[in-house]
């Protein structure tokens, strides 16, 4: 596995000198690429290095750094190696290149990202609505979207939840058991 990975890293570095590698154990390869290089990088991976399968496009909202991150998860069935390709997108102007000509299934993932995170894919051909219908707020998976505030505004609550207790605290109080430090931050 180590030899295969080293060979692949050398090949990728030769073809894309600006791609930043991060070392991981096991069968994981990890590269960070500029967003404009993504279509070329991914099609090179597919055609030349055997990463035939796109497993998923994951997305992260780095609100503190004012950026979105997309992670393309690729899988090579012949070498049994997975490749994570990271890229960052400006949060103010979220536009990304379309890759559904490389993998058809990327169209579905990109529709989800467009709707849930609000990243635009200008040359993607897809119907407007995917998961949400009649949505007129900011995309719900952005971290500045306040779910509870939206619920209070849109739906109704039935009274009776006001005395709801924190499960962890109630149990520890009853049994005299101490909450470990790492768990305290999850209490209400």
């Amino acid at each position: 596995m180590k030899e295969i990975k080293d060979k692949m890293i050398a090949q990728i570095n030769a073809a894309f000198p600006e791609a930043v590698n991060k070392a991981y154990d096991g069968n994981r390869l990890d590269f960070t690429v500029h967003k404009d290089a993504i279509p070329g990088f991914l099609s090179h991976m597919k055609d030349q290095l055997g990463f035939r399968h796109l497993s998923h496009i994951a997305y992260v909202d780095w609100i503190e750094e004012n950026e979105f991150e997309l992670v393309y998860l690729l899988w090579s069935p012949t070498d049994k190696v997975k490749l994570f390709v990271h890229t960052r997108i400006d949060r103010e102007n979220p536009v990304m290149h379309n890759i559904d000509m490389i993998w058809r299934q990327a169209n579905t993932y990109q529709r989800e990202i467009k709707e849930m995170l609000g990243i635009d894919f200008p040359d993607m051909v897809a119907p407007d609505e995917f998961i949400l219908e009649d949505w007129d707020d900011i995309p719900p998976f952005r971290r500045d979207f306040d779910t509870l505030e939206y619920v209070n505004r849109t739906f109704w609550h039935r009274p009776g939840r006001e005395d709801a207790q924190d499960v962890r605290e109630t149990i520890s109080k009853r049994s005299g058991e101490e909450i470990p430090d790492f768990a305290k931050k999850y209490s209400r």
Partner: protein
Amino acid sequence: MYNDKNSKKIVETIQNWARSHSVWVLAYGTGCGAIEIAPTMTSRYDAERLGFRGAATPRQADVMLITGYLTVKTVKRVVRVYEQMQSPKYVVGFGSCTINGGMYYDSYNTINLLDRYLPVDVYINGCMPRPEAVIAGLAKLQQIIREGKANGAEKYLENLEWYKENQRKIAPNWIAKAPDLNW
């Protein structure tokens, strides 16, 4: 003779008694609770001995079971299905999600109170209610049908404006395009 008040009452009593013994449930699972319908209807709990059986289409059904959480998207379809059903029709809210949102009370895409969008005749609480609870709830429905108190459909017609306004609040474009009670 048929038109005089007492005869009408007698006819209605007989009708209600007959209705309560032949309750056809629409086989339409909306949430995770649909998994409890299979054991309720099949040999283990065998609800058919009490007169409940599945119906294939909304137009043949008497009862709609709302089994669990409803997303905004599902509410639209449920309203459409409900309006397709023929009177007499009843709605049974199933599980705590239909009562107060359950564990999804702070989710942006699931509704909290079902009775703002559809008239609910009987609620079955629990997360999930066991088949015994489902049968108890359906038996309660039978009882109120016999007493002539299961009048959710009439309530829906009387307060149509209020229900439609609530539905429009979560689905503005869809309800505006939909015909009123004319699916």
